[in-house]
């Protein structure tokens, strides 16, 4: 089957083209393949095989040329933007895009850090794996305060699809009965440390409407028979996930959706295929296929199908639509509304609070927990909003004992100093604010009028910045987080705000630019992620979001995708597509 899995030139007419193989593309392909549709994934990057291509996995720092740091020269020439990602190092760099080959421009006075992962599996190999359901307070937020348009769906529309993807992917977490953060189908949660339990007790005592829970994450803490049958195993708590995980301990396209899709015999993958634009038929008002430029040879080829699913990442999908100009759609395909490219959002991760616990010297932890704690958003509806800004934020974070990485900077020379470095130091707690970013028309992407990349595709021009609302929110988050740690008895509590130094993009939660909506005049997609204008065109990644909400978006990418496939399959059966 393997020789048929990867294809290049073909005359075959497929049922479905799925552009992209990351979190959404993997799910779209699996769902179509399992329904019997002949599916072609079009992936712009190279093939990454599960296990075989995890070349950084399982190595100690001494096994790398520069002890996990990346050579200056290489960073300077190829990774100036990607290096800003916390997970970028010598063991993971091959899963990040090459900035030299992937240029984009930004509007004067703005900046945007666009993190790329152009290979089979996309960012599903690199993601942080936190997995949360959105609630009706999220879906209702735009309508309630008038910023952005209303989501055309509510929680009940998505709930069964959340359940479906959670069972397959494997999400660990604790049921909490919180109205702003619905429970899911959970595997057991990771354990908290004692200091974290103390902070939880203190927060719940001092703030009756707040709590602290274990982060929900796509790791197999206790794999089911079903997960084991997929060839996945229990998470080993290495927390080196972005190198790739041969245990299949976390959800990725490689560990989970692609094998399921391949098992059906209906999956084909065209790697190294950079989509230039969609092929549109004016007469039938349908997309017919895609124009592709070979990643390596720069030769062009085309693929054809009955349906096209864009799952190329938020900005990737929008760039393809913008570059698909036709007579009917001179400003980008499926853009009769004119909002394509607008309402770009990222998450506002711009306040960090750190403090030191006293005590617990006789306790440590074992293993490296690939997750943290979470203080769910407690300003989740207008009557709970701060008076200074709209919407809310959550805190992620965790505790650990300090080690040589910090004590190496302390004073001391000689045996006593050396001995101190081998000991676990004081317990620290860190909280990171994860705030909502308002949808604003001005935050947008467009095609650069003259600059192109090496495939001849116009570069994306990004115009995005934090607004006053985001800045005020983070100032408040810093104060609030500080107060919470002080009330729990922590010492040396410091907070910092980074809205003035950190550009949007680095949360790697970019969403919006091809939003859903009930009104075709104000939105690109309908409630099923289907283009209002062109019935056989769907966009199911983050581009479809109407608001950023507060929680991490990936689980919602998955749920929206499987729901859209279900709808599309029914429309195909009814011959409407």
């Amino acid at each position, binding site marked *: 089957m393997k020789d048929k899995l990867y294809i290049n030139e073909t005359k075959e007419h497929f049922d479905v083209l799925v552009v992209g193989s990351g979190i959404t593309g993997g799910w779209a392909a699996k769902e179509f393949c399992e329904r019997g549709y002949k599916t072609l994934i079009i992936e712009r990057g190279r093939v990454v095989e599960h296990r075989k291509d995890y070349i950084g996995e399982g190595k100690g720092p001494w096994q790398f040329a520069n002890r*996990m740091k990346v050579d200056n020269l290489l960073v300077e020439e190829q990774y100036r933007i990607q290096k800003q990602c*916390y997970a970028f190092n010598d063991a993971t760099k091959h899963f990040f895009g090459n900035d030299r080959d992937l240029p984009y421009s930004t509007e004067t006075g703005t900046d945007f850090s666009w993190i790329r992962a152009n290979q089979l599996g996309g960012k599903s190999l690199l993601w942080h794996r936190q997995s949360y359901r959105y609630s009706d307070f999220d879906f209702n937020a735009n309508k309630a305060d008038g910023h952005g348009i209303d989501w055309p769906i509510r929680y009940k529309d998505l709930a069964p699809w959340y359940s479906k993807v959670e069972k397959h992917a494997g999400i660990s977490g604790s049921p909490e009965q919180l109205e702003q953060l619905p429970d899911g189908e959970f595997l057991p949660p990771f*354990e908290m440390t004692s200091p974290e339990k103390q902070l939880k007790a203190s927060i719940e005592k001092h703030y009756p409407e707040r709590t602290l829970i274990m982060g929900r994450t796509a790791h197999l803490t206790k794999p089911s028979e079903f997960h084991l049958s997929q060839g996945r195993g229990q998470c080993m708590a290495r927390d080196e996930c972005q190198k790739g995980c041969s245990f299949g301990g976390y959800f990725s396209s490689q560990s989970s959706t692609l094998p399921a899709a391949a098992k059906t015999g209906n999956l084909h993958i065209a790697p190294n295929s950079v989509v230039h634009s969609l092929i549109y038929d004016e007469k039938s008002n349908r997309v017919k296929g895609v124009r592709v430029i070979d990643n390596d040879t720069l030769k062009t080829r085309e693929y054809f199908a009955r349906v096209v699913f864009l799952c190329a990442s938020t900005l990737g999908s929008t760039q393809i639509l913008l570059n698909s100009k036709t007579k009917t759609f001179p400003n980008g395909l499926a853009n009769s509304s004119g909002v394509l490219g607008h309402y770009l959002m990222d998450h506002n991760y711009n306040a960090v609070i750190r403090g030191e616990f006293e005590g617990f010297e006789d306790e440590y*932890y074992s*293993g490296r927990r690939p997750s943290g704690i979470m203080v769910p958003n407690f300003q989740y509806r207008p009557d709970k909003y701060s008076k200074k800004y709209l919407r809310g934020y959550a805190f992620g974070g965790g505790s650990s004992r300090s080690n*040589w990485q910090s004590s190496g900077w302390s*004073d001391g020379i000689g045996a006593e100093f*050396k001995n101190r470095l081998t000991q676990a130091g004081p317990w620290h707690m860190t909280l990171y604010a994860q705030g909502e970013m308002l949808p604003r028309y001005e935050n947008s992407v467009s095609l650069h009028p003259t600059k192109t990349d090496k495939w001849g595709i116009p570069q994306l021009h990004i115009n995005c910045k934090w607004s006053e609302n985001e800045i005020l929110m983070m100032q408040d988050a810093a104060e609030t987080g500080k107060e919470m740690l002080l009330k729990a008895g922590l010492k040396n509590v410091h907070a910092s705000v980074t809205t003035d130094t950190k550009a949007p993009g680095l949360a790697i939660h970019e969403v919006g630019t091809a939003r859903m909506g009930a009104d075709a005049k104000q939105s690109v997609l309908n409630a099923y992620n289907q283009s209002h204008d062109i019935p056989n065109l769907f966009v199911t990644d983050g581009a479809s979001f109407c608001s950023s909400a507060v929680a991490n978006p990936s689980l919602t990418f998955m749920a929206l995708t499987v729901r859209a496939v279900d709808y599309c399959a029914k429309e195909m059966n009814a011959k409407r597509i």
Partner: protein
Amino acid sequence: MTAKQQQPGVKNHKRRDFIRQLTLALGSATAAGLVAGNGLSVALAYSAEPGIKDKTGLIFTRAQLTLLAKVCDTILPRTDTPSGSELDCHGFADHQLFHCFEQKQQKQCCDILDTISRQSRHTYRQEFARLPQQEQRALLLDIESTSGFTLEDKTQFKFLKALIVFGYFTSEAGATQALNYQAVPGGFRGSIPYDENSKAWGSLSYY
């Protein structure tokens, strides 16, 4: 010094020239990709070599390297685990500065070594390497307490010291013998006992 001993430095200079030439021919992304992708970068991976003390460094002169080896052993002396220079922290620092740090940082490391050397001759009328251990330690403590040294000296020294510590605990012996190393923990437990005889984890998520 023999030609053979000079090799690492020469090879690395050649590497940069090689990349520059390739860049002209192919465009820099391709060139650097080629270099990163073939065996060359692996061949240049830093590993401890006995006798490195006698070599000229990529950043440091032979004299600076000899001095740095003693500084490493003063900061991290031999106890029940190897000393700094026994794990080649001086050679590591030279290699790491060359590959991962800016010229400014490379220069400040050279500067503080020269300052130590000068101050040793001035105060103790002796090369640092020849001082009794106690006096070596006293001199480095003086830098940290800025007695007879400037705040800038201290800042430069702290940077070099942290680099040496990094080199020590990311070496195989440092990570696995001086500390506890769990390559595959098997799961996470939020609370285990810890006492003064326990060691910190040497296996970390991020370095």
